[in-house]
C-alpha cells in the first residue's frame, strides 16, 4: 500500500464495537454502551464509539474527540492487563 503512516493507521482503525467481545471477557457484560470520560479532554463517549487500534500485541482505545489513549488491553496466556489511566471513569447502567 502506498499510504503514509497516518493513513495506514486510519485504515486499520476500527471502533469499540469491534472489541466488544474482548470487553465481555474482561467485564462480563456488553460494554459498548458504557460511557468513558476522557481524562485528557473530559469528553464522554460510548465505548462502542471509541477509536480502536487492534493491529498490535494489545488493543488501544482512543478518545474520538482528542485521540488520547483511554485504555490499553493486553492479553497473555495467563493474564489480562487493563491500563485505563486515560479514563476518569467508566460508567455502566445497572
Amino acid at each position, binding site marked *: 500500500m502506498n499510504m503514509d503512516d497516518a493513513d495506514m493507521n*486510519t*485504515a486499520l482503525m476500527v471502533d469499540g464495537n469491534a472489541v466488544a467481545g474482548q470487553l465481555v471477557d474482561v467485564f462480563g457484560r456488553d460494554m459498548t454502551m458504557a460511557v468513558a470520560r476522557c481524562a485528557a479532554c473530559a469528553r464522554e463517549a460510548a465505548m462502542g464509539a471509541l477509536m480502536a487500534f487492534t493491529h498490535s500485541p494489545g488493543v488501544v482505545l482512543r478518545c474520538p474527540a482528542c485521540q488520547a489513549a483511554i485504555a490499553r488491553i493486553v492479553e497473555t496466556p495467563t493474564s489480562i492487563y487493563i491500563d485505563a489511566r486515560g479514563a476518569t471513569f467508566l460508567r455502566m447502567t445497572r
Partner: protein
Amino acid sequence: MAQPVLEWQEGTVTAIRPETRQTKSFTLALPRWMAHRAGMHYDVRLTAPDGYQTERSYSVASAPERVGTIELTVERIADGEVSPYLHDVIVTGDQIEVRGPIGGYFVWEVALGGPLLLIGGGSGVVPLMAMLRHRAAQRATVPVRILYSSRTPEDVIYRSEFDAFAAGDRGFEAFFTFTRQAPPGWSGYRRRIDAAMLAEVIKPFGTQARVYVCGPTLLVEAVASALVPMGLPIEHIRTERFGPTGV
C-alpha cells in the same frame, strides 16, 4: 437495564445461502437464542485440534422478530482465518461456537424513529439489512433511505430484497453506487461516496436524519466527516468500522 450473561453456545447450521460470489448467509439455530437489537453482532469462535482458538465478529442480518435462529452474512476474506473456513468447510448440520448478541451502540429499533439514512459499503450492509428487516417486520412507516456502495453489480448483497422493499413500500428508497464497474446503461452514481452524493441523498430528511454508517474504515471516515458539517447532531450519527477492506 439488567444484562444477560453472554456465554458461548453451539449453534447448528440449518441453512447456507450464497448471496454473491464472496458472501454467504448462514442460518444458525441457537439453543439459548435471545432477541438481539438490529445492528448487533455475534462472535464466532473456531478451535483447532491443537487448541488454538480464533474469533471474529459478524453482524446479524436477520430481524429480531425471527425467533430461535439468527442469520449471519459473511464475506469471504481470502487471507482470513475464519471466513474461508465458514465458506469452504462448514455444511448444513455442522455446529459453530458463537457468543452474542453483542454491541448496544450500533443499533436501531422502531422506537428510535427516523427518518433513517443507512449508508453501507460492501458487507457493511449486513447490520443495515437487519434494521430494514426489523422495520418491515414491525410494519413501521419510518421513512428510510439506503445508500449502498459496491464495487460491481455482482457484489450487491440482498439485491432482490431491496427490489422487493422498493416495490412494496413507499417509505423506502435505495440508492446504489458502483466504484469499479456499473451495470450497462446505469444512470446512477458510479464513484465513491462523497459529500455531494450524501447531500443529495439526505436532502429530504435534512438534519432530522438518524444516520447509521457501516463499512470499511476509510468509507466510514469519509462519510462521518462529510456529515458533521451538515449540522447533524453527532449523537444521531452512529458508525461501525470494520477495517481496511477497500471498496
